[in-house]
């Protein structure tokens, strides 16, 4: 059979296929399609930087323009992954600097990035346009200076919650006067003051600037001028939102916001003085996204604001909103799709705000499009969860954190198995679930039975024994990421479901009951997994094999064991020998 289509035609057809899944499927059709596809793939997503090597990537895909790489496991966000674990982007940048002179975009999450890295990026890619570093660390404002000075076509610089060594704000002044290409700038995580005049000039000479997130050091007085220089802004993160009460500033700010007809997203709001909130009333009706999660304002002020934002699709807020504010949200914001409520006092023992499960129930009743929830609270009941589940079968993300570990149903004092069971049973499209409260193996039975589309599951202080883990591993067909802490899951369930681990991106278990012996067995049986034992007490060889290890990270990989592990990580060997790692 001869192909009637020349390569160029196939390539043209493939150029319309952008999703990774589809491209991967295309590449499996036949050798010739594999070849054509690999030459025309422009964008690659690497969910685990250790699942594949830079060498493999550049060998297979020679013409990449856009790379996205993720490093540390999610629990690194909560300090469960020790310092020095890994996730270095340097080898990737080195390989790409040689193979991809036309690279345009780099997006990183939870990776370690050095100033040398940033300098190498700035010098290697002539057409570099987009740098997004989400929750990254290891670099300073000097590295930023190289990027902005050398990347002549820079469109996006987004530092999203990264930990940056802030030497000074001087780096911003390294943007050349000729730079007019900026579309997105997010410096919210930086502490030092940047030159306001440089910032103002930069903002006003970039006609395509759509997203600007300032840092706290930009005072409120500077905001009106900045806004006037960029009336086309779609997303704004304010700096500090406080000043002495001055009527001229308030009206100046109000007038400036009036000009921003395209504004859809607002964030920032550090140090909010409620008296200045009315300045944003002109844009409230157009807002689809509002992030008040750093704003320590109380419920009445929050409610007043929200009641004007009838088109809100996404709200992030502190629990100061209270049940009363959530009632108002439920009444006014019928387009709400995502709600995140963060705790204002996570370590306090007493309840400091009038926010309970009722607030979430109201929102689940009032907002028919609600699909994504992150909710911190201090009490919950099975009845409330059942109601939420029945109200919102369209939920796709449900992350509930009851602040006290192993908290029972506050009404019946029972475990919350039935409540979460109702969630997975009713919400058939659920992709992400985080559990909390007192939970037995029963909840995992429900999850294994019903959560067929679940891709990511987070478990803490839950379950009775191996059976719980077994239910999850054997029942959740779509599971990709599983992270567990402080739960009595051990060897049996892992070993019985070892093959399942190759179908997932990764498994994290810390303070569980997995023995060193089981880890060795897993490493032996499944050569395409890296089984990493993390133990800060010294080599596990010095303890009996039945002894549980501190932390375990298992991920599938075609790269074999990695060689950048620190002294407290041992990768289990295929041969069952004394494992690799610095002893």
């Amino acid at each position: 059979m001869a192909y009637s289509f020349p390569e160029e035609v196939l390539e043209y057809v493939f150029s319309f296929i952008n999703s990774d899944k589809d491209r991967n499927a295309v590449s499996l059709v036949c050798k010739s399609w594999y070849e054509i596809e690999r030459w025309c793939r422009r964008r690659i997503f690497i969910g685990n930087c250790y699942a594949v090597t830079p060498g493999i990537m550049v060998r297979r895909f020679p013409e990449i323009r856009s790379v996205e790489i993720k490093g540390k496991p999610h629990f690194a966000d909560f300090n469960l992954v020790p310092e020095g674990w890994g996730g270095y982007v340097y080898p990737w940048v080195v390989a790409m600097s040689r193979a991809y002179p036309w690279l345009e975009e780099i997006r990183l999450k939870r990776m370690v990035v050095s100033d040398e890295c940033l300098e190498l990026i700035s010098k290697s890619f002539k057409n570099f346009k987009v740098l997004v570093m989400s929750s990254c660390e290891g670099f300073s404002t000097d590295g930023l200076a190289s990027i902005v000075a050398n990347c002549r076509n820079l469109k996006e610089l987004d530092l999203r919650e990264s930990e940056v060594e802030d030497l000074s704000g001087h780096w911003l002044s390294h943007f050349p006067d000729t730079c007019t290409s900026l579309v997105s700038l997010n410096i919210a995580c930086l502490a030092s003051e940047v030159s306001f005049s440089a910032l103002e000039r930069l903002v006003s000479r970039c006609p395509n600037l759509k997203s600007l997130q300032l840092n706290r050091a930009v005072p409120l007085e500077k905001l009106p001028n900045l806004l006037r220089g960029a009336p086309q802004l779609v997303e704004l993160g304010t700096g500090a939102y406080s000043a002495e009460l001055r009527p001229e500033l308030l009206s100046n700010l109000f007038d400036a916001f009036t000009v921003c007809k395209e504004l859809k997203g607002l964030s920032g709001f550090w140090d909010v003085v409620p008296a200045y909130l009315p300045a944003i009333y002109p844009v409230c009706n157009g807002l689809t996204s509002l992030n008040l999660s750093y704003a320590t304002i109380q419920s009445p002020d929050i409610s007043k604001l929200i009641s004007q934002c009838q088109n809100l699709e996404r709200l992030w807020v502190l629990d100061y909103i209270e049940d009363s504010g959530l009632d108002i949200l439920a009444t006014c914001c019928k387009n709400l799709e995502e709600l995140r409520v963060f705790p204002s006092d996570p370590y306090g023992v007493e309840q400091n705000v009038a926010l309970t499960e009722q607030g979430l129930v109201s929102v689940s009743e009032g907002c028919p499009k609600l699909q994504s929830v992150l909710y911190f609270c201090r009490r919950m009941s099975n009845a409330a969860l059942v109601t939420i589940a029945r109200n919102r079968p369209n939920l796709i993300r449900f992350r509930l954190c009851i602040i006290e570990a192993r908290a029972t149903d506050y009404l019946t004092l029972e475990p919350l198995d039935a409540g979460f069971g109702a969630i997975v049973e009713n919400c058939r499209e659920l992709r992400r679930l985080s559990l909390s409260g007192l939970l037995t193996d029963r909840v995992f039975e429900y999850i294994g039975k019903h959560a067929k589309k679940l891709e990511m599951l987070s478990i803490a202080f839950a379950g009775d024994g191996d059976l719980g883990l077994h239910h999850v591993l054997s029942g959740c067909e779509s599971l990709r990421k599983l992270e567990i802490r402080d739960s009595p899951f051990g060897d049996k369930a892992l070993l019985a479901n070892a093959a399942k681990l190759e179908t997932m991106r990764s498994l994290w278990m810390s303070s569980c009951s997995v023995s060193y012996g089981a880890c060795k067995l897993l490493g032996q049986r499944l050569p395409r997994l890296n089984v990493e034992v993390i133990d800060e007490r010294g080599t596990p060889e010095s303890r009996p094999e039945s002894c549980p290890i501190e932390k375990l990270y298992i991920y599938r990989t075609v790269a074999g064991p990695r060689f950048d592990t620190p002294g407290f990580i041992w990768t289990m060997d295929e041969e069952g020998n004394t494992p690799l790692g610095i002893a």
Partner: protein
Amino acid sequence: MEMDKQMIQENDDLHLNLRLGLPGSDDTAKKTSGTKRASSDHQDTSPPPTKTQVIGWPPVRSYRKNILQQKQEEGAMYVKVSMDGAPFLRKIDLKVYNNYPELLEALQNMFKCSIGVYSEREGYNGSEHAPTYEDKDGDLMLAGDVPWEMFVTSCKRMRIMKASEAKGL
């Protein structure tokens, strides 16, 4: 489905094909024997360590934690506010307000009470509630008597009383 029910009823032991066939190991692997993890003992139903801080719980990102802490350190003046008859106390940051009227409006909204207008001679007579506070010396004072700045620095705690009870101040 039958199998599943059995497995659940079995409760304790999984009848699984793969076994831990390692020399010297037994099912005690399930028990927590690590030395370091006192706070994560989970084998029994003992109450959780609510007072001791467990690492990474509740799961709040350091980024967010730092911001909230900064806010609290930076000269915020948090004081507890109670109202007679209300089930829980509130905490407010006095630095957020610029004068007594702003503070009183916020309190009225927060506690759904009516405080009315202050007068030097009459205090809050005529309104239902009166705002009082405990100052540095431990004395119970009527809010409004001293200049605002002085109030902010000397106020330790506030209490909203029924106006009838505040008459003696």
